């Protein structure tokens, strides 16, 4: 009996439990509104349905949020990811639009390499400002958030670059083994980052830098190098996301690509259980957070919620997720019901000293 209860407490106490519950509730609400929401059919040899849309559209956000997780783990933040995505997408699309044969694979690979290279430079710029010069991350990346958007518009000369390139389009809307290619890329990058950080000491080193950079340095970790590295990785992830966003509509709009994606990414990271203070990160949680945010957006359209109220709807769901995920809030709620499931909870005992 007690083991069952302990196990139940273990499940509900898991940091992914509540985000997953909300995700399932959202999907159920959609299914009640329109039963066919959950149906997935095979169309033209690939999967088709609202669920597939959610997965495909969340791919760029997953990528950006992955990079953001690592940056936040070091106690930093990267506000420039949206602008970097816009620059990378604009560079790639501009190059493709100037080639005589837009459908050549070589052209597309060169374009992607160019966009990626520019993004790495921008990431290195962030890294130098934060790790090298020591500017606060929020200020350092704010510079590129504003300037990068201007750079993207400059590259596109204020116009929307429209391209007609089959191979480039695959990045955004192609399919691999009936699955959207974008999500395959996003998952591959997720696995790569997970293996590199969790199967080696790298993840722990990143967390230790976030916990205390100076102590880590004294312990023999090159803190600055690690900090520099995470900003470069973040920019690299943003670049791939930028390719997906521009390939999705076969055009690069310097004003719109990746607009506000930095805020969605931070939200995804927080929903996933990573603290903004740094020192810890949970990649699985970040992926769930990104899926939850995209599901919210898609629900608004699928349930035809009035545009004037949709932002409020999103805000309410996010607040609920954040609140029920906070141990302090849950502990207070549980104490009201007066049956403490786990009597020795540090948060609970602390709270008991506060007069109600």
């Amino acid at each position, binding site marked *: 009996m007690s083991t069952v209860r302990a196990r139940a407490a273990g499940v509900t106490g898991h940091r992914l439990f509540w985000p997953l519950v909300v995700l399932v509730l959202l999907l159920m609400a959609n299914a009640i509104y329109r039963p066919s929401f959950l149906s997935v059919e095979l169309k033209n040899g690939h999967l088709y349905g609202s669920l597939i849309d959610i997965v495909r559209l969340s791919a760029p956000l997953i990528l950006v949020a992955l990079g953001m997780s690592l940056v936040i783990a070091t106690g930093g933040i990267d506000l420039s990811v949206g602008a970097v995505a816009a620059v990378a997408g604009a560079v790639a699309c501009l190059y493709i639009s100037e080639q005589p044969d837009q459908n050549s694979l070589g052209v597309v690979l060169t374009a992607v390499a160019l966009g990626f290279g520019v993004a790495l430079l921008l990431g290195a710029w962030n890294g130098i400002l934060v790790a090298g010069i020591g500017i606060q991350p929020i200020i350092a990346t704010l510079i590129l958030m504003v300037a990068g958007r201007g750079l993207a518009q400059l590259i596109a000369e204020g116009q929307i670059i429209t391209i007609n390139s089959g191979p480039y389009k695959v990045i955004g809307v192609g399919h691999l083994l009936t699955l959207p290619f974008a999500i395959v890329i996003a998952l591959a990058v997720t696995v790569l980052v997970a293996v590199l950080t969790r199967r080696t000491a790298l993840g722990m080193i990143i967390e230790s830098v976030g916990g205390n950079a100076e102590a880590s340095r004294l312990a023999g970790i090159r803190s600055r190098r690690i900090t520099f590295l995470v900003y470069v990785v973040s920019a690299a992830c943003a670049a791939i996301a930028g390719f997906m966003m521009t390939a999705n509509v076969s055009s690069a709009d310097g004003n719109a690509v990746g607009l506000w994606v930095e805020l969605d990414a931070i939200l995804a990271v927080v929903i996933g259980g990573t603290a903004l203070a740094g020192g810890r990160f949970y990649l699985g949680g970040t992926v769930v957070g990104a899926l939850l945010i995209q599901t919210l957006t898609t629900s608004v359209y699928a349930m035809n919620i009035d*545009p004037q109220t949709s932002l409020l709807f999103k805000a309410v769901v996010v607040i609920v997720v954040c609140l029920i995920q906070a141990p302090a809030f849950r502990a207070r709620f549980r104490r009201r019901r007066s049956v403490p499931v786990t009597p020795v909870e540090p948060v609970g005992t602390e709270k008991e000293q506060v007069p109600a």
Partner: protein
Amino acid sequence: MAKTGITLTRRGLGAMLAVGLLAGGLAGCGNSDTGGDGDSGSSGGGNGKLVIGFSQVGAESGWRTANTNSIKESAAEAGYELKFDDAQGKQENQIKAIRNFIQQKVDVIAFSPVVESGWDTVLKEAKDAKIPVILTDRAVDSADKSLYKTFIGSDFVKEGRLAGEWLVKEKSAATGPVNIVELQGTTGSAPANDRKKGFAEAIAANPNLKVVASQSGDFTRAGGKQVMEQFLKANPKIDVLFAHNDDMGLGALEAITAAGKTPGKDITIITIDAVKDGMQALADGKFNFIAECSPLLGPQLMDLAKKVKAGEEVPARVETEETTFTQEQAKAALPNRKY
């Protein structure tokens, strides 16, 4: 070690700020050169030529660039001297430019206000100097209507109505219900509100025409595509798509194709704007109808400038000459499109 790091930081920041200020100052200098076209040596109206001072919002989009070019070209064609100023999206630049125009004693001042409010003082100065003012493209909210002579610009309600009227005519033979989905512009923006209103008024003429879903696609292609994907899944029978601009319509095209339907045939597509990519889609048969939102108000502006200078009465509100395009008209017009 740490200490030097901090001092370095401060110095670095200071240097960066200094560089930023310098760059800003330089841009400002370049900007305040209102000489623009024509000989800047002659101070306003000396040689009998009509002198117009024009302050543009900025160069934020292809539409705006076409607007600027139209005004410059038609001034050159009419043989007027144009003092052109780019406000770069800042009201203080625009106020400074207008004061410059007043000092230079130009014959007519025209400008596209960056924001709606805060113009009373500078417009009063122009009035006291007896220089007539024409607003272009955007309105101001001054209570005193005598501060400016006229306002020339697009009528968004009319654009929506033209789109709706075409649809009513097109579907006049329909006996059953016609399901319409609508892609709205950015929630709360004037073009989105007005186009929605105009369209709704027009289609009320036929009770068979019904908007079954309406969502904001933020005027972007990605937004239009994402919303259309869900519209297609939630509504098995969609007959018509009405998008508040070409870009959202272009995004929706991809969603429609991915759903295995043929845009322009299975689903009738109506948009507003008539930018180049949109006109191309119309000529290719993917769109069915576009109501134009034209930036080419230069010739009309020159005509108005001449009239107000001569002291003739002009209407308080002048609509930009705009047209509509069907697929055939788009094919004919496409080679000559300027934007």
